[in-house]
């Protein structure tokens, strides 16, 4: 009896640790492939200059257009998504707490939105653009990407808000707070660290997405000067350069991937570390 139990525990414990290290191994392998192919093509010029003529034939220039474009696009989209997500998530958890069935319905729809492929968002964004007579532009890209990441953001915020105990809500009300005050003063503060994580993770998701910006933000060698100009993005730059006949250009695609990976790493670390500074007052 004891022996069988021990064997079982031993077996599963080792299986689990094997699986975990296997995952880590695969993940590291991918990151290694990217770095190993990308580092040789990486130079200061790559991150400090926009493409010059002939960049796509292997000549001078860099990826600054795509780096800046990606940052503009992702921060624009994350901010816009935040503007939609925050009220929605608070609304769900402050105003709608008593409508459990309705909430279940909303969460279901959010899951559906989560599952819609980004290329469908891209096509939808393109249709919207045509409908509103918008041109391929940073703005169109921001709108599309924000629609894509808003469900992710809301879901993450909702998970945080759900864990706030009912007692805190009762307390806020019994002090005479209006629902707005409850939402924006008390719940907001309590969930702020979680919100920051949600924002940064959605930002990371937005910066890595290809398909939704393909038809909406376009691709250009210029750094956009306003919202109505098209913008390049790193994922699209990778995608596009990988299609080049010239091997050196394809090498640069990996350099772009390294840059993107480093950006995401920074965002991720920020997402995990930054909230600590806002944890002070959380109960």
């Amino acid at each position, binding site marked *: 009896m004891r022996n069988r139990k021990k064997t079982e525990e031993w077996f599963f414990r080792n299986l689990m640790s094997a699986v975990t290290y296997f995952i880590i191994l695969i993940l590291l392998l991918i990151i290694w492939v990217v770095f190993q192919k990308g580092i040789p093509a990486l130079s200061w010029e790559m991150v400090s200059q926009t*493409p*010059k*003529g*002939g*960049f*796509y*034939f292997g000549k001078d220039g860099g990826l600054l257009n795509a780096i800046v474009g990606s940052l503009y696009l992702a921060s624009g989209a994350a901010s816009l998504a935040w503007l939609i997500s925050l009220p929605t998530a608070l609304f769900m958890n402050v105003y709608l707490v008593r409508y459990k069935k309705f909430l279940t319905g909303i969460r279901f729809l959010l899951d559906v939105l989560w599952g819609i492929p980004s290329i469908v968002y891209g096509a939808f964004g393109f249709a919207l653009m*045509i409908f509103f007579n918008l*041109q*391929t532009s940073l703005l169109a890209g921001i709108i599309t990407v924000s629609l894509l990441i808003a469900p992710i953001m809301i879901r993450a915020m909702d998970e945080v808000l759900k864990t706030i105990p009912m007692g805190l809500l009762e307390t806020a009300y019994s002090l005479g707070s209006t629902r707005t005050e409850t939402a924006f003063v008390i719940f907001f503060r309590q969930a702020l660290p979680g919100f920051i994580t949600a924002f940064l993770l959605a930002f990371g998701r937005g910066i890595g997405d290809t398909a939704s910006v*393909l*038809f909406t933000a*376009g*691709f*250009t*060698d*210029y750094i956009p000067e306003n919202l109505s*100009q*098209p913008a390049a993005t790193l994922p*699209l730059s990778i995608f*596009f350069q*990988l*299609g*080049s*006949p*010239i091997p050196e250009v*394809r090498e640069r695609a990996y350099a772009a991937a390294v840059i993107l990976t480093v950006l995401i790493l920074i965002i991720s670390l920020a997402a995990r570390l930054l909230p600590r500074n806002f944890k002070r007052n959380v109960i």
Partner: protein
Amino acid sequence: SCSTSSSENISLSGAFALYPLAVKWGEEYRKLHPDTRIDISGGGAGKGMADALAGAVDLGMFSREISPAEKEKGVWWITVAKDAVLPTISASNPFLGNLQQKGLSSTQFRQIFITKEISTWGQALSSANADKINLYTRSDAAGAAATWAQFLQWDAKQENLQGIGVFGDPGLAEAVSKDPLAIGFNNVAYVYNINTGEKRPGIEVIPIDVNENGRIDPEEDFYDHAGSLLKAIAGGKYPSPPARELYFVSDGLPENKAVLAFLKWILTDGQQYVKEAGYVPVDTAILQSELQKLNGK
């Protein structure tokens, strides 16, 4: 039709295949006309066409045959460069020598790619070998694939080509070069290094037996070097299709003077940059007729 853009602003969108060349043209043109801003964005041939027809851009970059449905919408187009699709195999193909001697005719290619009557290398080379032919094609809707299909059978489309679909030209080239029994097709620039004229490592061309006499005659043998190949394409010795034209499209003849000037420059001085991008300059005769088109004729 292009009311949305100011006279000093030219916008292009469309095929990624034409993007690098258009960027080069834009840059060179701006050296001559510094007050013209040229916005170029990628997105795919259909995107370029849709944008151009919607008036969202001045010119669409287009890399495949224009379909009847698109022609019905009143699209206007102009040839700006040429390209050619070449049947490719791996450099480690065991029948390489034999193939280079005999070549394959368009009929044989059809039997390989469309009808699948030929499925082994033995059948292709009239020997007893039973090794299967591993067939590859493009998965993404591509001008190259459409042109190749048209070469095999006048009314065939990309969807008629059999085989494993691989994404993008480099993907296809890579898949073919790694698989000794593979057969595929590629645009010129993915087979030859245009700067040196040498074939890219790992990949070889199957010569086309144009006159279908079962061997490659001297006048059919120009695949050694990019230079001789480009000459053969320009001179029509390499059949068309699989040689093909690349277009700029717009919603009717452009009214914008700056756009017309830009197109005119492309058809004249601009042609010197075409080779660098891995494409074939347009023959002089066609250039003339395209220039006529710009004048509304």
